[in-house]
């Protein structure tokens, strides 16, 4: 039940430990970490800069988390997303979910990532080693990944 937007990196081990706390009803914790890859469509990456929409980003992440909490009975959840300039190998996002049994934690983490990818107002700009730079195009798969969660 926590959303953070930050420039700094995060410590996954410490975050998962804090998420769990001393809640002994938690039997399953799922984490997703997204990180900057070294090779992208256009070539070798020097760095990636994440622009975002201050204000809307936080509220959109909270909406996504609220929706996950409505759909699955989670004991705890966490979304951390970074912004600013990151290098290959650096972490971008951490999503973690905790529940009594594994199915709910897995589904909720996937749901949060799918929604985040198509709704949270972040934009990636890649700078390649050869000096070129450009905005990353949205992946077609991300829209369809979001759509599988639609309830009628």
């Amino acid at each position, binding site marked *: 039940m926590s959303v953070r937007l930050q420039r700094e990196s995060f410590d996954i081990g410490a975050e998962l430990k804090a998420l769990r706390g001393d809640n002994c009803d938690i039997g399953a914790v799922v984490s997703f970490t*997204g990180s900057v890859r070294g090779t992208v469509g256009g070539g070798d990456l020097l760095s990636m800069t*994440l*622009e*975002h*929409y201050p*204000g*809307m980003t936080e*509220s*959109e992440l909270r909406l996504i988390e609220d929706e996950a909490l409505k759909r699955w009975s989670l004991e705890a959840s966490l979304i951390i*997303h970074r912004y600013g300039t990151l290098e290959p190998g650096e972490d*971008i*996002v951490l999503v973690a979910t905790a529940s009594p049994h594994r199915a709910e934690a897995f589904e909720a983490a996937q749901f949060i*990532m799918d929604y*985040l*990818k*198509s*709704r*949270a*107002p*972040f*934009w*990636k*700009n890649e700078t390649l080693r050869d000096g070129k730079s450009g*905005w*990353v*195009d*949205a*992946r077609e798969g991300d829209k369809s990944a979001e759509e599988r969660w639609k309830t009628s």
Partner: protein
Amino acid sequence: MLDQPMTPNSRNCKILYFAWVREKMGRGSEEIEIPSSVLTVGDLIFFLKSKGGEYALALENESVIRVALDQAHASRETKLGQPREIALFPPVTGG
């Protein structure tokens, strides 16, 4: 007062631009007066695009442009209302 031209529902709004929309616009935000004829988000895009120049350039590929009203996602059919803040941006690519 009755002598003044009445434009009921014409409103001044702050518009924000992000990512390549911001770059093509050459600025991150501005105040714009939106005429009363603009009722929906779709109308707004049409209105802005018709201003030409950087607007026409930034909104050239208008089907990919996303719009948020007061920091909430809006579709083309969403009624514009009286938002304090409008944002135009490309599809998001975080995560």
